[in-house]
């Protein structure tokens, strides 16, 4: 009888969690090209004013 896991736990969620993590990490890696996503991941958006965000994005565009 085939087992899903060595410790008799149902491991499907672990496998799904792994995929989630893998895709999430990939997205974070790709986000370095997306300045707004970068700000979001660094948790800086809430503390910045709209003007600061705008200037930041404009600055990145000219880089």
């Amino acid at each position, binding site marked *: *009888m*085939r*087992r*899903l*896991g060595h*410790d*008799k*736990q*149902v491991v*499907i*969620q672990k*496998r*799904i969690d792994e*995929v*989630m993590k893998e*895709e*999430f990490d*990939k*997205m974070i890696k*790709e*986000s370095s090209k*997306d*300045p*707004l*996503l970068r700000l*979001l*991941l660094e948790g800086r*958006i*809430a503390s910045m004013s*709209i003007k600061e*965000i*705008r200037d930041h*994005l*404009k600055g990145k*565009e000219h880089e």
Partner: protein
Amino acid sequence: MNSIHFSLIKVAGYRGRNFTLKTNPRGQNTVFIMDGNTGKTTIIELLRWCFGHREREANGTFKHMWANPAHLLDDTKEGHQTCEVTIQFSALDDQKHEHFFQLERVAEGQHDDTRPPLNENISSVKDTLEIDHGISVLTGDAVFDYVSQEFRFNECAEYFCFDGEKAREVMQLASDSKNINTLLALVNRRTTHPKLEEYKQRLNGLGERVLEEAKARITDRALELNMSKLNGILGDIRLAENQLNSFDNEVDVCRLALSRLEDERQQTQNQITTTKVNELVERNKYEVEKKIVAERLSRERDSIYENSEDWISASTADEINQIKMQVKEKGKLPEPYRRDLIETCLACRKCEICGRPLDKTSEERIKKLELQVAPHSVQVFLSSNLLISPSSLNAESKYNSIMKLVAQSDLLDVKIKGIKLSEKDTELIAKRESLDKQISALNAQIATLERDIGDRKMWITDLKGKAKELQEKSEALKENKIILDKIDESIKIIEDAEEKIKNKATEIISSVISEGVSSILGTKFSARFTQAEGLMLGEDGFYGTEKGGYSGRLVLSYCFAEAMTVVGPIIVDTPAGNIGTPRENLASHLVANHNQVVLLCLPTELTNFANIISQKEPITINNMKM
């Protein structure tokens, strides 16, 4: 924490009954022998209720088999009563230390004939969670929040507590392509990344901040109006999207209910058709004939209305044309003013024909004029001549053919009424009629919901177009356009990641279900779960919604349930009944894949099933009424 082990499930006062299920120690499975109507399903439903609903939502959410909501208290007992459910379990932390939990839910109330349909009044439901024998105690919604976060019981209570009803539901979902969305919704809920959802919300929040700030800085009245309009539209989009979601969910629920009713109707019909009672067979024959006659009658009648122009003769057309002329000439309808001319006059407050400014009286007159303007289509209709070709309706022959069908139907009615049926047969017929009514009502409800869904989708597309246009027009937003554009781009990146996760997770779920099916039914069987086709059983590499027979589909539903659960134990009610030969394999599969199997079984399931789940002596449960 993981390696959950259930040690005790105790029910006191549920509809006047008490049960205590004490399982074997950690590492061992347990078999409880419970005969019919002794509380197997009740235990499953009570566990789902405790794990699936927080305290504040618990009152009125307990369901039992087909009753939703279902009653908890004893309807033969007067005065104050309680129904208590106690669940004891333990789990291991990362250092393999065992921690103990006791979850208790107490519902208080009394039987009350004045409160149909349940006839009971639950005054309170209270939850308590004791951790490590009282070192920490939680109460209220905190209990649900804790066990949901720590063990994710809420996500899978429907599946790790598994019974025949749930298996039937999964089988129905998997058998009909219309149910794909419901199945996918279950999987998608499972594969939604909480962080990604949070990021999307934050980005949407930033979009709202940009709009708010732009609105606050606007001094120009027209721009302000523009912004208010935009805000209104964005609010409408949110509203329409919420409505769309709720309609989608409602349709899923209706489809599931419909599929159950159709199944039940088919079973009733089979009973009627296969009955050995001649009278019932004859009655059924007449009923089928009557249905055919009714359909022909309906078609005949419809055809008269479909060709309604045939009713009117050429002389009637002359009369209609005269009436139209009279309405046009004397019916006080003015010449067809152009609506845009009136609107421009009112907007510019000057006459667009002579150029004079409008005083109050003229403005009022023009407003009245606007109300009097007949739409262009009416003017065209009144000006055109009605042309009728000579009538092709043979009224007498139509009448005769309809009357013949009516007579046929009446005769069949007399024949049907003339057949004497036994009480049981009458019940079957009444049941089928009642099911027909319910099916027809559900179909109508689904049709309405689908129309509403279509309307909302069109509304959303229209609103999004308008919002985009207003955003582009708005000067105040132009300088922040870069932020709004970037929000769209970032959301797109997140949604792409979510899509990839969903597709990969679906592949994993598919392969796990397939592994399970092969291990129970044999290697010639497999399963496939895709976003496009839903859940299908395969035999020798050919997949379909009807493969495998009842037994195979039951096994498929078990494997689906296993794939949907996120905890180790599985608590199953009467699983072997309809499985047939693969029951031994199912038992071995359950033992191999779960760290604890709690089996609630009938005495008939002991051989070749329960003995594989556990070699320990089965525990007989005597369900006592207080």
